[in-house]
């Protein structure tokens, strides 16, 4: 059996498969199926300074090979995250990534401060959030605002900082370089693609929020292309996600340049998806005669 562990900005993961933020709660739910210590890590549900109710329902609708969600960051707030969810999660022997969100640079910074000295292993900065200061445009779509929020959080944080990129941009490479330049220790991508569905009977959007984020197998080719693009632009580690539903998909992601992967929507389809992907990646790495799965990363030879 090859060595399945990977190291990302100093943090050791048992294996390169991480549960994606928002699809795995704070880990307790899926531990009713299997011990989540089998996973490389978990990226927790996006957390904000104060509790958020999220959007009204319906919050989810199925599309061809995908889903749209508009949960809207319902979460208990960083306080209860630290006091009640994190301790339970930490008992599971698993790398814990806190996924943080905010409406202003100050929000993000305060979040980072609150996580200092906590048992959180790493911070994932979710920058697909409206920047109230800039008229609601996402932080994540402008290199300047990405750099700004990254640099500020980096200053106020003692944890490795992974910036999570949104795919709804013209040049993901430019955004990646901005984050790297501002001090990001790693990048993760992709977040969801903005989409919509309409109920032709009522002629209303199916989602109460009108639009939602597209995830699942449908977006895999776009995610793979973007991971490759980013891998070629930066030197920091890249965590790839978006539509991964099989070990073959995960292998493609790593070959394209990802040091690790996150798996989201696939968990809804098959609660054992992550476990199967870990196993499949293991046999694949073995069959290639590699000693460590890290040898897979970025081995694509383009035409």
């Amino acid at each position, binding site marked *: 059996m090859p060595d399945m562990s990977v190291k990302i900005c100093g943090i050791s993961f048992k294996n390169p498969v991480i549960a994606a933020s*928002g*699809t*795995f*709660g704070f880990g*307790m*739910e*899926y531990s*009713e*199926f*299997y011990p989540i210590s089998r996973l490389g890590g978990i990226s927790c*549900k996006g957390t904000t300074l104060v509790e958020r*109710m*999220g959007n009204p*329902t*319906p*919050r*989810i*609708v*199925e599309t061809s*090979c*995908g*889903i749209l*969600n508009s*949960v809207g960051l*319902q979460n208990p707030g960083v306080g209860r995250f630290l006091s009640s969810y994190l301790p339970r999660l930490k008992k599971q022997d698993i790398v814990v990534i806190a996924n943080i969100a905010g409406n202003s640079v100050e929000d993000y910074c305060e979040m980072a401060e609150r996580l200092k000295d906590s048992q959180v292993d790493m911070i994932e900065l979710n920058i697909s959030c409206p920047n109230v200061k800039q008229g609601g445009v996402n932080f994540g779509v402008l290199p300047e605002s990405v750099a700004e929020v990254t640099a500020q959080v980096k200053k106020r944080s003692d944890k490795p900082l992974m910036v999570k990129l949104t795919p709804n941009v013209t040049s993901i490479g430019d955004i990646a370089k901005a984050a790297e330049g501002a001090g990001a220790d790693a990048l993760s991508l992709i977040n969801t693609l903005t989409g919509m569905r309409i109920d032709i009977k009522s002629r209303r959007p199916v989602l109460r929020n009108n639009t939602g984020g597209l995830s*699942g*197998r449908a977006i895999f080719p776009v995610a793979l292309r973007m991971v490759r693009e980013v891998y070629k632009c930066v030197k920091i580690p890249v965590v790839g996600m978006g539509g991964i539903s099989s070990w073959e998909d995960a292998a493609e992601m790593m070959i394209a340049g990802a040091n690790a992967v996150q798996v989201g*929507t696939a*968990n*809804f*389809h*098959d*609660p*054992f998806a992550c476990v199967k992907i870990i196993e499949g990646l293991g046999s694949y790495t073995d069959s290639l005669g590699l000693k460590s799965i890290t040898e897979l990363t970025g081995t694509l030879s383009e035409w």
Partner: protein
Amino acid sequence: MRYTQELGKILNKTEIAKGTFDVTLHSPEIANIAVAGQFVNILCDGFTLRRPISLCGFDSKKGILRIVFEIRGKGTEWLSRLQVGDNMDIIGPLGHGFSLIDSSKKAVIVGGGVGTPPLLPVAQFYRENATVITGFRNASAAILQGDFEKAGAKTILCTDDGSAGIHGFTTQALEQYLNENECDIIYTCGPKVMMRSVARLAENHGITCQVSMEERMGCGVGACLCCVCPTKDGKGKHLTRVCVNGPVFSSTEVDWDA
């Protein structure tokens, strides 16, 4: 490990009303621990999301589950094409079921359409102390009346068009029933508007009422926060996950006005 994934072999399948199927599965692990009001989440080929379907029956000794579902869209249509001998990929038992208090109490059970199936195990608990008021579009859509009677329950059938039983809504029948009879607890599952009326009637009569809510689901296990329903308690208003904190709620917990 509260949840199991099983490939439940279909033992029996009957179309009990046009487009409504009664299916029995061999699923011993889930059958072993299921309680009334819980559901399973079923994989449909070609779809990303599983489809939640309530348990209409479970027998831990025989290791079987019973579900009754209606074709509502493409997922349930696919399900309806499975045949005896095929496997259904299910996870369960999911959710927080009905509280069954004391079978000597008088229970009134109100079901609307395909909201009726999860109420059968409740009737089977209260037996002759149960009165089951169910409503359907018309006579041919009415299901499970024989099962409720076999359980020993009294049945009151309502149809929207009067083609069988009482011509009218379950809520009218319930109101009349409560005015004339004793009742300790009410259980209801069906369209939201119906359940809201049932909840109001229960409140007016000072009767405890349990409602089984429905919401579009992602994971079915509490991880994604897609399936929330508005609730309230001493601390304020909340959006609570139907898949784990429900589908059964106390009627006073639900924020019907949200």
